[in-house]
């Protein structure tokens, strides 16, 4: 039978690439993702890798995975379970079997299933021979062996030859899903410009993988049709890149220079890296000696008139605490991005979680309110980084923007916006010649004015001590009360400048699912699927947490039951219990360092729908 005629159209498919941390699975996964988007599919990706750069070879602890969900219609999650798993060694199989759908396909590198590797992975006996995998369609491909044979006459050394084996796996998967190799080849040619031998070898192996799949014809071939997507120019973007670029966009719209004071920390490091590449747009990145210096340098830059930001993750935010308090007291604009990871302490550095919410809201000395907001998809990190900067600058407040490991490293196609569609940002900068009173406030926002050093006649001193309106140190008891209340009220009034909370799904439902931040894709998919099944459920997803959207109480009052779903032990739900105590909240919490699955979300909703 002609291979091409044997192609089955499917709606969507989830593919998981897995191997040793050194096997190049992240690259293989992202190359396949790029291939899929270029052929018009919608995608969401989810890299899942260990904290160790190279954990002991062949052990489960060292397995690195990359999951991609591709669809012919809008895709909002990286998929609960994989239709296809690529496992480059026994450990990868062991770690990932539970993530494969029953009846799914597992492609193994048979060459790597040696006795030693099988034992290292923690199997007592060969799992293939044990027929523990009978629920799956197993393709035993001698990936390493064919890779070696293919390159037997090349001038590369043995190690470099074996390094090409990920391309073999990519070749197989490209054939299975009817994708051509152009994107991958194009990438290889750019990446190894100066090493033609390496380009040639990888290309050969890639083609060998494709030919192998075509020859064995072990599985049905699938095609995921292009998704119907809005017209426009698109690019693939992950959360950290979108966040980084959102800040540059805000600086441009505010007509300010961008200063980034950061210290490397997983999973936030990309933000510093991305921004350090943008010297062409005048971005000043300062890799500080520690997290404290990172936030403090940003505060200094803000004092001196830049749009100043600092990026970090949970433990880093803990170190920045005192500095953030100073920014609150001095009333300087500042954005702190916390790319949340599993905690506490070092916790699960490469895994996702939403457990820094309380730290963001409350983790400082004294009465120290600030704005807390959260992005909810990889690409809207751009919008929320922009919005966080706008609020910080126009209201003269620090803003904590929460993203998470899932958003940070997950990617999706993004319709590239035009900067003319974004609003100008107007920070209240004091001008030469005007009478300057450091803590005199705008009537509406309560923002004080920003007098930038170098401006003639506006000399003043800021500080962390309590002060009066003139900026003079004041220990007067009543003044402290007034100033504390003003700082609180100033944050509250931000509610007048943020959008109202929207409801998705069945608006007449009795049950409201509530979420915030990076879980949007899973919650929206679950609610959509439930609606399609005829279940009456609605979704309210929060991007603004402090202050909450003004209509939150109105929205909640329309529902009989509210379930708050989050990746922690119940921080947002308890915050809501403080802010809106008149409602009763159910909660569903998961804290495994993993995103929700749509299945488990639906199961929890079914339960609530049942007990009426």
């Amino acid at each position, binding site marked *: 039978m002609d291979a091409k005629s044997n192609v089955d159209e499917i709606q969507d498919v989830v593919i998981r690439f897995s191997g040793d941390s050194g096997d190049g699975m992240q690259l293989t996964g992202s190359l396949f993702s*790029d291939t899929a*988007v*270029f052929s*018009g599919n919608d995608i969401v990706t989810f890299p899942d890798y260990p904290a160790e750069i190279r954990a002991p070879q062949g052990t489960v602890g060292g397995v690195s995975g990359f999951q991609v969900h591709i669809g012919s219609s809008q895709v909002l999650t990286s998929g609960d379970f994989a239709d296809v798993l690529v496992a480059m060694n026994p450990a990868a199989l062991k770690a990932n079997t539970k993530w494969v759908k029953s009846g799914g396909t597992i492609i193994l590198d048979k060459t790597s299933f040696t006795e030693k590797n099988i034992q290292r992975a923690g199997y007592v006996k060969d799992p293939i021979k044990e027929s523990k995998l009978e629920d799956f369609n197993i393709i035993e491909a001698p990936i390493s062996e064919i890779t070696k044979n293919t390159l037997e006459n090349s001038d590369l050394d043995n190690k470099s030859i074996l390094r090409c084996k990920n391309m073999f796996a990519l070749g197989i998967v490209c054939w299975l899903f009817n994708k051509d190799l152009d994107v991958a080849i194009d990438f290889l040619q750019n990446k190894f410009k100066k090493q033609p031998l390496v380009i040639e070898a990888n290309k050969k192996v890639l083609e060998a993988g494709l030919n192998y799949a075509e020859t064995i014809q072990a599985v049905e071939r699938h095609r995921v049709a292009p998704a119907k*997507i809005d*017209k*426009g*120019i*698109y*690019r*693939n973007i992950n959360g950290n890149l979108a966040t980084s*670029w959102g800040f*540059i*966009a805000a600086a*441009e719209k505010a007509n300010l*220079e961008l*200063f980034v*004071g950061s210290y490397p920390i997983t999973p936030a490091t990309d933000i510093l890296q991305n921004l350090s590449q*943008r*010297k*062409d*747009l*005048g971005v*000043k990145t*300062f890799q*500080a*000696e*520690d997290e*404290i*210096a*990172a936030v*403090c*340098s940003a*505060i*200094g*830059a803000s*004092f*001196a*008139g*830049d749009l*100043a930001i600092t990026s970090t993750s949970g433990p880093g935010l803990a170190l920045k605490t005192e*500095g953030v*308090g*100073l920014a609150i007291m001095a009333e300087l604009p500042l954005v702190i991005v916390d790319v949340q990871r599993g905690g506490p302490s070092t916790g699960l550095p490469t895994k996702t979680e939403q457990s820094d919410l309380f730290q963001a809201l409350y983790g400082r000395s004294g009465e120290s309110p600030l704005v807390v907001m959260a992005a909810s998809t990889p690409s809207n990190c751009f919008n929320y980084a922009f919005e966080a900067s706008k609020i910080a600058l126009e209201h003269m407040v620090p803003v904590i923007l929460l993203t998470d490991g899932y958003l940070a490293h997950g990617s999706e196609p993004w319709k*590239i*916006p035009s*900067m003319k569609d974004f609003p100008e940002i107007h920070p209240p900068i004091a001008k030469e010649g005007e009478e300057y009173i450091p803590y005199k406030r705008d009537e509406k926002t309560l923002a004080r004015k920003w007098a930038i*050093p*170098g*401006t*003639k*006649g*506006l*000399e*003043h*001193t*800021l*500080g*962390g001590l309590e002060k009066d309106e003139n900026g003079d*140190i004041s220990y007067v008891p009543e003044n402290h009360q007034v100033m504390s209340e003003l700082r609180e009220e100033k944050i509250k009034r931000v509610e007048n400048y943020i959008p109202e909370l929207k409801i998705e799904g069945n608006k007449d439902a009795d049950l409201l699912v509530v979420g915030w931040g990076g879980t949007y894709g899973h919650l929206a998919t679950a609610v959509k699927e439930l609606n399609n099944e005829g279940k009456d459920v609605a979704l309210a997803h929060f991007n603004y947490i402090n202050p909450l959207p003004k209509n939150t109480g109105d929205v909640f009052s329309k529902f009989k039951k509210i379930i708050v779903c989050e990746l922690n032990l119940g921080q947002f739900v308890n915050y809501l219990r403080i802010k809106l105590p008149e409602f009763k909240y159910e909660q569903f919490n998961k804290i495994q360092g993993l995103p929700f699955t749509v299945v488990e979300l639906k199961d929890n909703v079914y339960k609530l729908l049942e007990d009426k």
Partner: protein
Amino acid sequence: MADNKTKLTFKDFKSKGDVKWCPGCGDHAILVSVQKAMADMNYKHEKFVSISGIGCSSRFPFYVNTYGFHTIHGRAGAIASGAKVANPRLSVWQITGDGDSLAIGGNHFIHEIRRNMDINIIMFNNQIYGLTKGQYSPTSPKGQVSVTSPYGTVEKPFQAGALVIGARGTFFARSMDNKVNLTAEVLEEAAKHDGASVVEVLQNCVIYNNGAHAYFSDKEHKEDRQLILHDGEPMIFGKERDKGLILDDSKLKVVKIGEDGITKDDILIHNAGLEYSGIHLMLATMEPPFPIALGVIRNVDDYTYANELAQQIKDVQAESKIKCVDDLLLSGKTWEVK
């Protein structure tokens, strides 16, 4: 380095508020020296920024009429670095103490020096925590009795100069609070220096550590116990100007001119601009029976962080096709859905 020159006097830098240091505190004299030095620099008044941490000395920004920022304990160096990078045209002065910069802020201190941030750092060293009422500091001599060391400290103190040189500092000077003119003189040198300039001012805390520097400032013996360095001049000191330093067996040695055949020509000539820091380190760490070295000990030209960064930005901008955010968003791999 700040630009745009204009004529100012030290009165332009007096703040309207009251100075609230203890009567007799050495800080008062240092304040006058700084105001003098600022006026003599001939920069525009609005270009001056003073940034401090926490401690007695750190109240300084409230007492000098410039843009000011009284921040948090130990962090002035990081905050000043951010301000300088944000606007390299500012003349940034960091006011700190021995506790603020060498204990809680030690990390920021060594890194701003290593980066050669163009900041004038004035460290008031009184060898005690004054604001918290008398605990020993990282510069308190071993054995010092304080409220947290009632039986004497068991710690080895920091030598500020050694730390600065160890962090690859390009400028280190030392003065004493009661030497108003010398302090102003070295501060001017510090301000002129492109890069991190550290001026250690030995300061007397009348309340909690009175007389900490008395050995060196003692009226009777000060000429014999202080070596005031001048670039290009021999290292001569003493009431009779008859003592000097020579190198003997790779170590400094005090000699008397006219004894053992020593003449003025044998005395070491001070070269603050010498890149090699060996002699500077020896001078900065001299302890009795040697005299204490005052004046500019080290003053070496080197590249500075903010200038390098500004230049790098210029260079990259000249080469890059990306000129605005729209260009950036459309750069790299994109595709069109029609």
